[in-house]
């Protein structure tokens, strides 16, 4: 017997009832009596000394009530704040601006328009300083030191390495074939539909409530308490509906702090909502990795070793949200789906005059960078060996029987069947027929390419013994209360930004408790009511909070079993949980449903037992989970224009047990589109003066329905052995896996011309130029 809305059912998303009717409740929908508006003066320079800030004219603008400068904050020790990577960032600068569009002053007014007028009236006198845009130049001797406030007088933020350096050097030296590629993964932006913003309000008792676009409300509350010195019980963070986060709403932006300061200063609630250009130009970016990778193999195609060196451009401060132990995130998943015996990775974080960040844009802490690197260079190696890239992967995959598998860089993969996923993708796309077609087309001078990406993801941080952010351990939580009538409410430490938590969490609980998912309300995002958690990013909600839901539900079941035994007048040991109710073993007619048990929990519970039916669990996962997939992309290239057309894209994903197939498919569609974007369209570029070129959607090219192909999705199912229901997480897999498949397809189409790599985004101009250089147009 199935329960309505249980695990594995494609029920419609509960939250969509309000979203499709325009009834969502976003931060900008919050309107409070007497609310003021904050707008921000931003630097036109990428690096400059502030000689003076004149606010006289701004204060005369009708409606303007206050202007906040860095020196005002300095007096309260608030001019700087910590980043989530234990670096420092300015709330407002006192002496120097470090990147174009950096916050310089804040204007508070009685309307959004007056605040904007006030911003224009603030006069800032700058003295331009030398700008460092290129991270390689930032490391050269004599480069201007961008952060003189640090003890280390260098632009190198940190150096981090893992693996066996000597062993890898030796293995590469002894390899029959070695391939090296330099790959640049450019700076990109999450560009979620809703920009960032907040409303800050103090009540009469001095309690601060902040409605905020944050993916991690509890962590933000703790940071606010530590930075501002406010008692944590007097801070309430409410994260209402969020219009997309993708990692961009994890950091603490100066605008949030400024709104709180403005509310304190004026005694009124203050709203700050950034506009689209501010969002693109000033908020945290993603990627920006300069990678040099070397891979070795024997002559017969057996992988031997991998060496990766990376320069990570972090802008003027390291404001990534990586776990404390791993400044380069989980980039050392770069050995991917292959059992290298030797590998070594080193990464250097570097300061430049660019906005801060290095956020996990729909990938679990630098995993997209890692997957792109390994899947790109494996393809290059196969080509050098004269082997088919599918055959080469099949020959080298970690075999299914090797799981749990310990990688050369220290990860323990929980489960996988990489051969199965690739075989399925090849069957769907009819790989052999495509290769024949390609050979025929090549004879006719037509350009067609087939690209493969067989990626391994790593998601679900904790476990807490290894993962923390600013010392906060990375567990997550669920609290369930079952009401007397058998309905329930459950609260979580995570925060959905469109993932569909209200549906999928309810499905997990429905399966565990035998209550229809329709009868279970899910709440997240209010720190006054939800249990403490680290929030939603890095595909961690299902592996952590989803697991907490299962475990908390099982705690309820333990109590429910005793109540059922009391009602049925049998021993608890005589009962079994079957068909979503407690039955007397061998007598299925003698049973109690959860609704009956819940009513009894408040009206007829056993003597000596507490009334009520509720539980909480703080789940600390024993390991990460390792979703995987195999993608095959088929492209045709227009020789006249250089345009790459994706003819087919087959995505076979394995995220373990699937809770809602429809939602998973939606996640994969969105993720693939976000993987297509950097492969072919998106890049944030700076000129030599640090001007961001393309700070609006006129130049920063998001894929639309026109550019997006028809995705063909399929699945294999390899449950995680350590997750309570075998789920692994899927939010980011497609973003992680797609770019390499697309680039491999384009390179495959041009390989006979001697092309081994093209940096992303692969624009028509880049391809057209190559075709002309190779005289193939």
């Amino acid at each position: 017997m199935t329960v309505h809305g249980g695990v594995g059912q494609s029920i419609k998303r509960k939250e969509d009832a309000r979203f499709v009717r325009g009834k969502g409740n976003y931060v900008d929908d919050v309107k409070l009596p007497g609310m003021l508006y904050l707008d921000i003066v931003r630097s036109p320079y990428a690096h400059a000394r502030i000689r003076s800030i004149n606010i006289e004219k701004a204060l005369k603008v009708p409606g303007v009530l206050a202007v906040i400068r860095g020196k005002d904050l300095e007096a309260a020790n608030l001019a700087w704040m910590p980043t989530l990577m234990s670096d420092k960032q300015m709330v407002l600068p006192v002496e120097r601006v470090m990147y174009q569009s950096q916050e310089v002053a804040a204007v508070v007014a009685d309307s959004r328009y007056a605040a904007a007028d006030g911003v224009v009236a603030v006069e800032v006198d700058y003295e331009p300083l030398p700008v460092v845009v290129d991270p390689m130049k930032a490391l050269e001797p004599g480069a201007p030191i961008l952060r003189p406030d640090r003890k280390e007088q260098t632009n190198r933020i940190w150096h981090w390495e893992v693996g066996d350096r000597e062993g890898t050097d030796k293995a590469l030296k002894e390899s029959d074939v070695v391939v090296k590629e330099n790959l640049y993964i450019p700076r990109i932006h999450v560009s979620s539909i809703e920009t960032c913003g907040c409303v800050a309000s103090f009540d009469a008792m001095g309690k601060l409530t902040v409605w905020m676009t944050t993916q991690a409300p509890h962590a933000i509350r703790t940071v606010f308490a530590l930075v501002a010195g406010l008692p944590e019980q007097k801070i309430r963070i409410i994260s209402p509906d969020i219009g997309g986060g993708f990692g961009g709403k994890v950091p603490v932006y100066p605008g949030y702090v400024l709104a709180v300061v403005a509310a304190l200063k004026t005694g009124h609630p203050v709203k700050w909502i950034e506009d689209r250009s501010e969002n693109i130009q000033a908020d945290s970016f993603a990627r920006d990795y300069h990678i040099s990778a070397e891979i070795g193999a024997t002559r017969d195609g057996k992988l031997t070793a991998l060496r990766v060196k990376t320069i990570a451009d972090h802008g003027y401060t390291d404001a990534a949200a990586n776990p404390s132990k791993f400044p380069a995130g989980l980039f050392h998943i770069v050995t991917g789906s292959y059992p290298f015996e030797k590998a070594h990775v080193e990464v250097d974080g570097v300061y430049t005059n660019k906005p801060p960040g290095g956020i996990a844009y729909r990938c679990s802490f630098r995993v997209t960078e890692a997957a792109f690197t390994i899947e790109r260079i494996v393809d290059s190696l196969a080509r050098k060996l004269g082997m088919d890239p599918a055959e080469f992967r099949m020959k080298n995959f970690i075999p299914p029987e090797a799981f749990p598998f310990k990688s050369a860089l220290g990860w323990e993969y929980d489960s996988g069947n990489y051969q199965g996923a690739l075989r399925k993708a090849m069957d769907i796309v009819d790989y052999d027929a495509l290769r024949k077609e390609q050979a025929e087309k090549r004879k006719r001078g037509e350009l067609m390419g087939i690209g493969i990406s067989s990626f391994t993801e790593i998601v679900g941080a904790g476990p807490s013994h290894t993962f923390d952010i600013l010392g906060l351990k990375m567990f997550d939580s669920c609290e369930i209360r079952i009401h007397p009538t058998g309905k329930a409410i459950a609260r979580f430490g995570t925060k959905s930004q469109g993932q569909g938590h209200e549906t999928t969490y309810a499905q997990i609980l429905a399966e565990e408790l035998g209550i229809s998912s329709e009868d279970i309300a899910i709440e997240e995002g209010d720190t006054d009511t939800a249990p403490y958690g680290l929030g939603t990013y890095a595909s961690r909600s299902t592996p952590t909070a989803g697991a907490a839901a299962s475990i908390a539900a099982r705690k309820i079941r333990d109590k429910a079993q005793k109540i059922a035994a009391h009602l049925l007048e049998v021993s608890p040991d005589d009962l079994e949980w079957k068909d979503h109710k407690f039955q007397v073993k061998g007598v299925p007619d003698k049973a109690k449903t959860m609704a009956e048990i819940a009513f009894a929990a408040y009206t007829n519970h056993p003597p000596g037992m507490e009334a009520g039916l509720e539980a909480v669990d703080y789940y600390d996962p024993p390991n990460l989970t390792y979703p995987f997939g195999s993608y095959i992309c088929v492209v045709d290239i227009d020789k006249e224009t250089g345009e790459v057309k994706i003819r087919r894209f087959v995505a076979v994903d394995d995220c373990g047990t699937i809770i809602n197939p429809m939602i998973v498919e939606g996640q994969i569609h969105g993720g693939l589109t976000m993987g297509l974007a950097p492969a072919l369209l998106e890049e944030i570029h700076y000129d030599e003066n640090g001007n961001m070129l393309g700070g609006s959607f006129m130049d920063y090219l998001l894929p639309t329905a026109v550019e997006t192909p028809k995705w063909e999705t399929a699945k294999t199912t390899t449950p995680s052995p350590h997750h309570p229901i075998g789920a692994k997480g899927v939010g980011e897999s497609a973003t992680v896996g797609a770019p390499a498949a697309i680039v491999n397809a384009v390179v495959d189409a041009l390989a006979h011309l001697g092309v081994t790599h093209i940096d992303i985004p692969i624009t028509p101009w880049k391809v057209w130029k190559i075709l002309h250089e190779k005289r193939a147009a």
Partner: protein
Amino acid sequence: MHFEGTFTVRASSTRVWSFFLSPQEFSSAIDDPHTIEVVDADHFRGTIKAGVAFIRGTFTWSATVKERVPPERAQMAVHGSGMGSAFDIVATLSVSESAGLTTVKWAADVQMSGTIATTGARLLQGTTEKKTNAFFENARKMLEVA
């Protein structure tokens, strides 16, 4: 951005040189609405309403004469800001007269920062070049009429 050009005008080199060093005169060759205030012989300031694409507004600017070699050479530095943007221009003028005609060689290094450079990047080069050319063409006409 670097721009340069040459034009010939039927006027003496002394006249041409003094035109470009006179704030009231050279400012009359600017198409965009503007104000100008003479601080002293080498310093001027004012406002100008200009923009690129949809980013339009009022900029405040100040200019300093860096070099005067009458009637042959002059160099002027201009700094302006507004609308979340800033610009710095270093303009050099080289004047030579021959057979009643004066040849003017000009060069300008323009550095844009802020919203205009960011949002209007694609249009910046063309717009700036167009405005610069218009300025010198206006100047040439005014010099010949005079």
